[in-house]
């Protein structure tokens, strides 16, 4: 057979492959050597170094990094009111964006999962996926031009005697909600798909009005999926600095990290620990709420 022919041409390869034959542990070790070198040594190692760097300082005169041990950065983060304000502003925006996305995403996901025809469903899935994958920066650019003084939003609102939000915190909230919306739609859609139709029919047959069915059956079952989606809207907002810079003058965790990385690397490292700590706390809460059980 052809396979025989291939092998006889490559005896060395066969000997090499023979080494692994019947040795599952060796196979696993060989398979994982590369990935773990990359992800454990390089990536996890980098996160550990980041943690250590947070305790370093910068020489005030020369600007050189001093690799000592000091709580200076952590203390500054905890004690200086300006950083508390920035962290709270970032977290508050993350909460607002998450709630906004949940409210917009739910009807879309519900329609996709339980109301649309087979064809409509397939079309909607693609319609949600495509913008998810089209350039992040381009979408921010779109909003930047739309929100500008001469932009389409003011053009549409002026005849009504109204004025758009312009650049600022409202713009950040609006644009981030826009950017992360598909990240919320998809998990909710997946969660709703898993609810058997028979459960909904049973509720209806037992005389529940559509709203009652929604409130007592569908929403409780879909809630973990909403929480799963919120992990992304929350995490992505915490780390963003590009959008914040493009549509506002506000300081967020991300903008402070980005601007301090060249002058004060240890402080940037200390600040980067904030999203990590917040995300760990968030994941713990999400787990309690059952976000990971049905997915």
């Amino acid at each position, binding site marked *: 057979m052809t396979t025989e022919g291939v092998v006889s041409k490559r005896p060395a390869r066969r000997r090499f*492959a023979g080494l692994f034959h019947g040795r599952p542990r060796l196979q*696993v070790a060989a398979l*994982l050597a590369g990935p773990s070198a990359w992800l454990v040594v390089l990536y996890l190692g980098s996160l550990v170094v980041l943690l250590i760097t947070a305790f370093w300082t910068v020489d005030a005169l020369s600007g050189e*990094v001093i690799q000592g041990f000091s709580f200076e950065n952590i203390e500054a983060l905890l004690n200086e009111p300006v950083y508390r304000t920035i962290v709270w502003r970032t977290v508050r925006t993350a909460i607002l964006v998450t709630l906004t996305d949940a409210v917009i995403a739910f*009807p879309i996901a519900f329609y996709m999962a339980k109301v649309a025809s087979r064809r409509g469903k397939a079309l909607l899935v693609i319609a949600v996926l495509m913008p*998810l994958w089209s350039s992040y920066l381009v979408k921010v650019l779109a909003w930047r031009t739309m929100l500008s003084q001469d932009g389409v939003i003011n053009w549409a609102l002026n005849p009504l005697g109204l004025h758009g939000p312009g650049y600022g915190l409202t713009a950040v909230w609006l644009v981030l909600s826009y950017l992360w919306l598909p990240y919320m739609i998809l998990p909710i859609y997946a969660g709703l798909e898993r609810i058997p139709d028979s459960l909904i029919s049973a509720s209806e047959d037992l005389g529940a009005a559509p709203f009652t069915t929604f409130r007592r059956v569908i929403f409780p079952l879909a809630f973990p999926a909403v929480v799963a989606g919120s992990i992304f809207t929350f995490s992505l907002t915490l780390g963003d600095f590009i959008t914040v810079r493009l549509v506002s003058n506000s300081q967020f965790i991300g903008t402070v990290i980005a601007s301090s990385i060249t002058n004060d*690397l240890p402080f940037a*490292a200390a600040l980067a620990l904030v999203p990590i700590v917040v995300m760990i706390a968030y994941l713990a809460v999400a787990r309690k709420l059952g976000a990971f059980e049905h997915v």
Partner: protein
Amino acid sequence: MRLSRRARGLLRFGVGVGMAFIYLPLLVIFIYAFNSSKILKWPPPGWTFEWFSKAFESESVRESLLTSVEAGAAATAIALLLGTLAAIAVARHRFFGRETVSFLVILPIALPGIVTGVALSNTFTQVLGISLSLLTVIVGHATFCIVVIYNNVVARLRRTSGSFEEASADLGASTWQTFRFVTFPSMKTALAAGALLAFALSFDEIIVTTFTIGAGEETLPIWIFRNLFRPKELPIVDAVAVIVILISIVPVYLAHRLSQESGGIAAGKGGGAAEVAEVTAAP
């Protein structure tokens, strides 16, 4: 579900508003790319193709496009190798710490990009003494692209039974032959879909790139970001933006055709939530 006419109508209205919210900004960008005025004023006074030809003529656009393609291709190649190896190990073997592998693969996209960017840049410059360059960008991109390949291949391997591989081994095929003639053909399309998505992910990335790129280099997103603040360049930026959308949409559409796995295409982006959840719930 049985819905009243009014409820159905309200729901349709909600979906319509949501979809308009998603697509109107993209439409605005497309319209502005053909706008004849140098100022992005609404409504555009006239139409032109000038910005596209200017974009294609621009040396810096062509260079940054090339840099982006290089970075994307190299990162995808590394991710293909590492993601496939990890996927085979997890899907076809049982060993201590199997769940940890999935967790590790997902971590770079579960944490905010800024954390990955700062951590890697810090390690390169402070610990390894490497100066930032295109190479460090590729390392950064490969780190978060592994998950896309991994998810696609694991999904495929879970659907194809391991008994084919056992049969192949029983019939006397070596480990390599089994891989070459049984495992590989069954995951070929999953690899292609994963590679397309990994490339799209890298092509669009800006946050990790900002922290890991050398002073003299620009990827296309970095070019766009730097020129956004120059009013004179804005119409060209807009034309480039349209080109970027088209370049990133094509691989995603192809990947969607290639992989019909549920969540395959969303892996690494929205569907990542499902993976994070699965992994955290695993032990």
